[in-house]
């Protein structure tokens, strides 16, 4: 995941704060140890090394993760695809932004996951797991669960500033309010969240000298290309995981997949920002 995590719990004394903070850090570290592709010794890295051509056993937690991935892959008609690692890596290596050759060889369709046997196998060498559009939501669910178990009734949690959760309501009453400006820094969308999460996906801006340039970082398996539209998608959901997965999936989806997603996820709210204007929909 390799990203920044912030947790704000209002009205907490120092001792409790340290204790909750410590436990949350443990959850983060434990989950990162399973899901990250940036550490050689994570479970995910081990699977990526070993699973081509032979079924390898996975931990219970990884099995739950893969089960959830499988459901999302089906319910988004493949717009969410956590097995495109080779495509993603290739882009970083070659800076070739339209490298679609491996797409057919990569992807979840080439993953054989057997939940009861708890094994995974890749049918092609190009297949590899990347939980980039999933992990933050998954961990956020765990942390919300932990805090609720401790009877914390208000908290604001931000994961890399792209997946955000408002637990309970603001201590002064009413929902947590989040302001998400368009790319130009203006025309913000104001989202009210109470026991809800939002997740934002879109073009990543990187600083080059003085200007900020968009860099595509979401790959659309259906369109077989990197998403280069200047567009942000925000998904609001009671489930941080759904918000996270769907915001990426909606950015990647073609029209057919979009229709399917809107139909399959009735309780989520979808917003899109194009040409510096927010509107409902995707």
């Amino acid at each position, binding site marked *: 995941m390799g990203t920044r995590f912030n947790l704000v719990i209002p009205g907490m004394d120092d001792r409790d704060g340290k204790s909750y903070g410590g436990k949350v850090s443990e959850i983060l570290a434990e989950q990162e140890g399973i899901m990250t592709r940036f550490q050689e010794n994570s479970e995910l890295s081990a699977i990526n090394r070993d699973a081509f051509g032979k079924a390898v056993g996975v931990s219970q937690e990884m099995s739950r993760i893969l089960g959830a991935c499988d459901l999302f892959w089906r319910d988004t008609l493949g717009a969410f695809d956590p097995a495109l690692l080779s495509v993603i890596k290739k882009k970083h290596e070659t800076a070739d932004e339209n490298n679609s050759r491996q797409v057919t060889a990569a992807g979840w369709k080439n993953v054989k996951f057997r939940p009861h046997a708890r094994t995974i196998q890749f049918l092609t060498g190009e297949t590899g797991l990347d939980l980039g559009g999933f992990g933050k939501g998954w961990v956020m669910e765990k942390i919300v669960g932990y805090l609720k178990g401790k009877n914390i009734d208000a908290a604001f949690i*931000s994961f890399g*500033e792209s997946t955000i959760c408002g637990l309970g309501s603001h201590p002064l009453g009413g929902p947590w309010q989040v302001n998400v400006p368009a790319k130009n820094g203006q025309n913000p969308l104001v989202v009210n969240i109470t026991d809800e999460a939002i997740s934002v996906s*879109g073009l990543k801006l990187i600083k080059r000298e003085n200007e*900020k340039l968009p860099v595509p970082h979401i790959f659309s398996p259906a369109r077989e290309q990197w998403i280069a539209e200047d567009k942000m998608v925000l998904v609001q959901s009671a489930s941080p995981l759904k918000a996270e997965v769907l915001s990426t999936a909606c950015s990647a989806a073609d029209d057919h997949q979009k229709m399917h997603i809107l139909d399959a996820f009735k309780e989520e709210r979808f917003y899109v920002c194009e040409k510096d204007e927010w509107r409902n929909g995707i």
Partner: protein
Amino acid sequence: MLTPISLMKVIAGEGNNRSTPNDKIFLGVIGTGSRGHHLAYLIKEYGHELGMEVTALCDVYQPHLEHTHAMIPEAKVYNDYRRMLDEATELHGVIICTPLHVHAGPTIDSLDRGLHVFCEKAMARTLDDTYAMAEAYYRTGKSLHIGHQRLFDPKFLRGMNKVYNDDLGVVTQIRAYWHRNNDWRRPVPEGQPELERFINWRLYRDYSCGLLTELASHHIQVANWAKKARPVEVRGTGSISFWRDGREVEDNVALIFSYDDGTQFIYDSMIQNRRHGLEVQVLGHKGTLELETNNFFLEEPPPPPKPAGIVQLLQDLEQNVLGKVPIGSSSWDPEIAMTYKGESIVADNNTDGTFEQFYGFAKAIREDKPIPGLFEEGYYASLWTLLGQQAIDTGKAVKMPEKYDISKFNPREFV
């Protein structure tokens, strides 16, 4: 012990390096080859900041003498350094940039005439010459500054200050390397093959220990400085494996210097591959310095700064304000992979300390006394460089013979 703070103060100009108009420092340069010419150039260009001026030049090789004389035409020129010392009576100090085996004579003669000496590293070709230079230094009380410029390089000073402040914790290992890819030869004028050994002195055993005295000496100084100690033993090996062109010095070497506390300084150098360039890494249980490239890494990276939106939320909560949390202002960078890249030791890494050394030399000349602790850095670095060569030559672990210990002279500590 030479504390980094003391030298930081020197290059910050504390202790009045600056001159008044009638407080000039006149310098002679002995050996106007490549290094001598460069140092003379630095003083000509920037020496006025320190009131320094080169008024005499000496070299036995006419083309080199003329080259530097053309740059500083007002300087007097000599072919024999003894004549220079006799005649150029205005001199306060000399800069010695002759080949390694010609360091001791001019240094000792200059000190004995009451001059302050800046002599390029390493000190000398032999242990006895090195020791004789030390004796002259303690005998005369003048300053003998050896040209290990990292002692005056701001990134090394600040980095070393981190070591001395315990920011790295216990220094458990030091690693350094210096790699180049060239034959290390200087062109010999056509039709004068007899000049080969004179021009390419650094390739021949009589005059040089090659990679050790030319390069390793610098990092040995840094390692001792970081350890606040001298090695107790050195082992090493090396060979001529690639440049088999008649040279006598190794083209690849590897050395391990052991310290009293059981830690090692591991060094290697070669001239057949330049991929890794040069580096000196000081490794402690809390952090790592990569001094040549100006980097410092903590073993436990500090938490990243809070994003603006979270800062705003915290302020609002503290002031009981019901605000909106701004997420994704213009600095918004979702899903950025946060990797810890360490921190720069100094913000502006634009000098290697070569000129800054003259701040120290100017101070020593003006106060007519050495900077305490400085000479000893150069001495032990030079000595252990030569012992490293012995280790390579004998294949044995080499210790410093008792007689070269200079603590009997009660080296001055910095106060």
